[in-house]
């Protein structure tokens, strides 16, 4: 995962609420065995409309996306995060995110920034003409107009994003604790420890 400290540039002023992952990447794009190239299918149904923000040359390669409440609801498909990455998006700003999407974004080095609706509205207005900057280290979003919006982030996620840490590698280092748990489970709850091997 590529480390991320700040994201700065144009922001796509999408703004829609309840954007589900079927909108971010329709199911027929999921028939792939790689993570690459999904940007072509990103927001396909939105892009079918003339004059949509995603095809506005002003936002070509914009690293930030601004959306409404409950962004990324619905399917657990991580393809939604891969599609955003492939579009060049490294951060999404919205009033709230679905739990699964927020996790998928984080694991792909996409920063999700939750801000109150009125601040998101302000950023949507700024994004029409000007760039936006997100400083992860100081947890603040700024605009060229003195706007300064602080945001919260889980400290563990912040550290992983800033260092580009490999979460699986970190967990594998806890092998002893996992093995101890497995021994205890095999003793106390053997039916859970058996899985598919119980069948004759």
């Amino acid at each position, binding site marked *: 995962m590529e480390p991320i400290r700040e994201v700065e540039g144009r922001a796509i002023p999408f703004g829609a609420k309840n954007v589900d992952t079927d909108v971010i990447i329709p199911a027929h794009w999921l*028939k792939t065995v790689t993570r690459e190239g999904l940007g072509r299918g990103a927001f*396909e149904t939105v892009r079918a409309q003339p004059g949509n923000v995603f095809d506005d040359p002003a936002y070509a390669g914009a690293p930030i996306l601004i959306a409404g*409440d409950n962004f990324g609801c619905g*399917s657990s498909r991580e393809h939604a995060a891969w599609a955003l990455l492939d579009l060049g998006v490294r951060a999404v700003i919205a009033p709230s995110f679905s739990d*699964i999407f927020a996790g998928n974004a984080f694991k792909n080095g996409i920063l999700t920034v939750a801000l109150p609706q009125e601040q998101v509205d302000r950023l949507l207005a700024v994004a029409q003409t000007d760039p936006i900057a997100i400083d992860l280290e100081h947890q603040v979003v700024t605009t060229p107009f003195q706007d300064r919006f602080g945001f919260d982030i889980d400290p563990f996620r912040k550290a992983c994003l800033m260092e580009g840490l490999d979460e699986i590698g970190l967990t594998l280092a806890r092998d002893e604790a996992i093995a101890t748990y497995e021994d205890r489970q095999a003793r106390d709850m053997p039916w859970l420890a058996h899985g598919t091997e119980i069948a004759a």
Partner: protein
Amino acid sequence: MASRPRTLYEKIWDAHVVETRDDGTALLYIDRHLVHEVTSPQAFEALRAAGRTVRRPDLTLAVPDHNLPTTARRAPDGSQLPIDDPESAAQLAALEANAPAFGIRYIGATDREQGIVHVVGPEQGFSLPGATIVCGDSHTAAHGGIGALAFGIGTSEVEHVLATQTLLLRKSRTMEIRVEGELGPGVTAKDLILHIIGVVGTAGGTGHVIEYRGPVFEAMSVEGRLTVCNMSIEAGARAGLIAPDETTFAYLEGRPFAPRGAEWDRAVAWWRSLATDAGAAFDKSVVIDAARVEPTVSWGTSPEDVVPIGGSVPVPDSFADPSKQDAARRSLDYMGLRPGQPMTEIAIENVFIGSCTNSRIEDLRAAAEVLRGRRKSPQVKWAIVVPGSGLVKRQAEEEGLDRVFTDAGLEWREPGCSACLAMNPDKVPPGERCASTSNRNFVGRQGPGARTHLVSPAMAAAAAVTGKLTDVRELVS
């Protein structure tokens, strides 16, 4: 020492904590991992690239479901037929190769037990009460119906579970949905969960695990409970739970991977101890009056857009929230509906009975009861019944349900996810309407431009008969 009263969720959580970190996150042990062909190839590839193995292949079960065509899978000579679509074929081939390469038990496309992962898990006794269950699919919440803590994960988490059999998680908040009273005749588990999502909203459960409580769920079959928990994610909750009880134990006993003998007795004793303690606190509580739940249908492009079948398409200006007004206008435009139109005047051209929400034997019986001795309306161009698994299919055929469907003019198909998300050839044509027993009415979900109305199996059958959305209570007394 008396301990603090705990909820069902807290008890399962506590039993699976490998270790807690200073920042409050926990490494949680995962007991069961279901793998399908769509969200796993990238995870296996990453494992391979890093030289990693699957820690507990015996706690992992792989089944293809999303991509498989629901037409015949075997040639007359018994050989497996190839899939026409090259991308779908490649995903299936990847799972067929990855499962044995990593030592994982694999139920193949032509095996009798094949089906939708969320039907297969409980049916095989692989999913158990009190277990932590994950799958790269948001409808994993379904397994909460047998009292498991089950939730969908992304592909990076699939890889994490394959490699470590754990996930790093922060404890969710808890939400109680208590349903008081009794459901009326003709009102099913699907109507109830659609009604609940309408009340809670698609983001109402975000950050929470829901526990469904009250006499309605106690009286409900396991199939109905799986339907309810399945759609928890449609209310924003990653997981939904119903306490395991005698109904659950009777359902699971004797299934292939369920515990046996003395282990079964020990398991049941533990399962009985899982119910939420008297006095345990929930972070949020919603009370629903069962008597007010009618057969429910969706009108828009979000599962919260529901009304009773006797109602009408809402007027967008009637919503208090301006952004909801906008969303409703866009939904009605996409759905080709006008404000105030009675729901029972909406004509449908397609019917889909299936999906991980409603493809179990009880669902098929409910649909067949309505269709018995009737024919589908000539206005209905395409109507398919897709059983949730090969075992459901065989059971239905033993009961003669397949004949009821085909005599009524519906097609009887092979198991899979099918037209719920249209990754296989089963799609609703652009601009056409479908009465669907699936879980999502999102824009383009059943095919580009397709218009979905979410309904129960009995309501889907009623729509097939009349060619429009219909109150099933008018057809079946």
